C-alpha cells in the first residue's frame, strides 16, 4: 500500500470514528418513539427482584460454610498452645502485651529442688577490666552479683533465679535474638541501652545484663562456669 493510501486511510479512520457517535445517535433515535409495550407480571416481578438484589453481597452457602470452617481452623491455630509458644530451653516464650515472658514448660520445682539456687555461686572466668563487684544478694529463690566500673556509669549484673510460674523479661520485642553460647540457647534482648542475655539451666534462669558493650556481655557469658 502506498504512503498516500496509508495517509488517506488514517484520515478516513478518524472521520469514521468521529461519525460513529452521530451514527449511533441516529440509529437509536428510532427506538425512542413508539408504542409502550406492556410487560408481563412475570417480567415485572423478575425486574423487581433483580433491582432489589442488586449490589447486595451474596454468599454462596457452600462458600460461606468453607469460610466459617477456615475461620474456625485459623482461630484454633492462633489460640492453640503450640502456636502461641516458642520453645526456649526447658521453657516456652509467650508473647504477652507487657513484654515477653518466660513460662515454665514443665512442673514448677518444689522448694527442695531450689537448693541449687541457694548454693548461689558464680564463677566469672572473665570480668571486663575496671569493673568490681559492689553489691550482691542471696535469697532462697534468687541471687545476683552487681558490677560497676570506676566511673560508675557502666554496670552489669549476673543473676540466678529459680523460675517460678513466670519470669518476665522487661522488653517489648526490641533487638530480640536467639544465639548459641557454649551450646546453650541464649535469648538476647535490648531495651533502653541495656542488653540482656538469658538462658536456662536445670530450672534456673541465668541472666547477664547491663549497659556495657554487647561483646563484653557475651564474653562474660562464654566464660561463666
Amino acid at each position: 500500500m502506498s504512503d498516500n493510501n496509508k495517509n488517506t486511510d488514517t484520515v478516513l479512520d478518524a472521520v469514521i470514528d468521529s461519525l460513529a457517535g452521530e451514527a449511533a445517535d441516529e440509529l437509536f433515535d428510532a427506538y425512542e418513539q413508539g408504542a409502550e409495550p406492556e410487560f408481563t407480571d412475570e417480567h415485572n416481578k423478575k425486574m423487581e427482584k433483580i433491582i432489589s438484589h442488586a449490589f447486595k453481597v451474596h454468599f454462596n452457602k457452600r462458600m460461606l460454610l468453607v469460610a466459617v470452617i477456615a475461620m474456625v481452623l485459623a482461630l484454633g491455630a492462633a489460640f492453640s498452645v503450640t502456636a502461641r509458644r516458642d520453645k526456649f530451653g526447658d521453657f516456652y516464650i509467650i508473647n504477652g502485651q507487657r513484654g515477653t515472658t518466660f513460662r515454665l514448660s514443665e512442673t514448677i520445682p518444689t522448694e527442695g529442688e531450689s537448693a541449687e539456687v541457694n548454693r548461689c555461686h558464680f564463677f566469672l572466668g572473665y570480668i571486663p577490666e575496671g569493673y568490681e563487684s559492689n553489691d550482691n544478694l542471696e535469697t532462697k529463690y534468687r541471687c545476683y552479683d552487681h558490677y560497676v566500673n570506676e566511673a560508675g556509669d557502666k554496670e552489669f549484673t549476673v543473676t540466678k533465679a529459680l523460675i517460678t510460674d513466670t519470669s518476665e523479661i522487661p522488653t517489648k520485642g526490641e533487638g530480640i535474638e536467639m544465639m548459641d553460647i557454649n551450646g546453650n540457647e541464649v535469648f538476647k534482648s535490648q531495651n533502653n541501652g541495656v542488653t540482656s542475655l538469658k538462658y536456662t539451666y536445670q530450672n534456673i534462669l541465668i541472666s547477664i545484663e547491663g549497659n556495657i558493650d554487647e561483646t563484653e556481655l557475651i564474653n562474660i557469658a562464654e566464660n561463666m562456669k
Partner: protein
Amino acid sequence: MFLFLQRLINKKPTKKQKIEAVYKKWRFFMYRVAYDVLKNHAMAEDAVQETILRLIDNIDKIDDIASRRTRNYIGVICRHIAYDMKYRKVSIGSDAEYDSLASEALSRDALSVVIDNENVERIKEYIKSLNYIYQEVLFLYAGEGMSVGEIAQLLGISTKTVQKRLERARIKIRQKLAEEATDNE
C-alpha cells in the same frame, strides 16, 4: 450545619437507586431495541433483564442517566444481548468474511475520496448498515470513548477480537467509499 444539610440535599443516588432510574427511564427503549432483533415478546423481556444485569456490573460507567450517550450505551449492550440470544452465541457474518479485506490493498488514488457533506452522510449510513458485531465495537470505542479492554469486558469477548472488529469495521467502510469513488469515475 449548613454544609451538612447541603450535603444531605445533594446526596448522590445510591447504585441501587441509579439502576432503578435507568430501568425506569429506558425500559421501553431497551424492549424496542431487543424486539427489533428478536421479534418475540418474551425473549425481548429476557433481553431487557439481561441488559439490566449487565448494567449492574457497569453502573459506574453511567453518569447522566437521561443522556443520549447513556441511551446509546444501553442500546449497544441490549442489542448485543439480543443478537446473542438470537444466534445463541454463534457469530453471524463470521469474522473470516472480512479477513480478505484486511489483507487486500485498496488500490485507489488517495485523492479520489473527498470528505464532503454528502460523504459524511454516506459514511454514517455505512456505519449504520454494518453488521452489529462491527458496529457495536465502533460505537463503544469511538462513540462512547471506551477502551478496548473495557469493551472486551462488557461484551464478553477478547481484546484481540475487539481490535480486529474495529479494524474490519473501518476497512469495510473505507472499501465501500473507494468502490463508490471508482463507480463515479
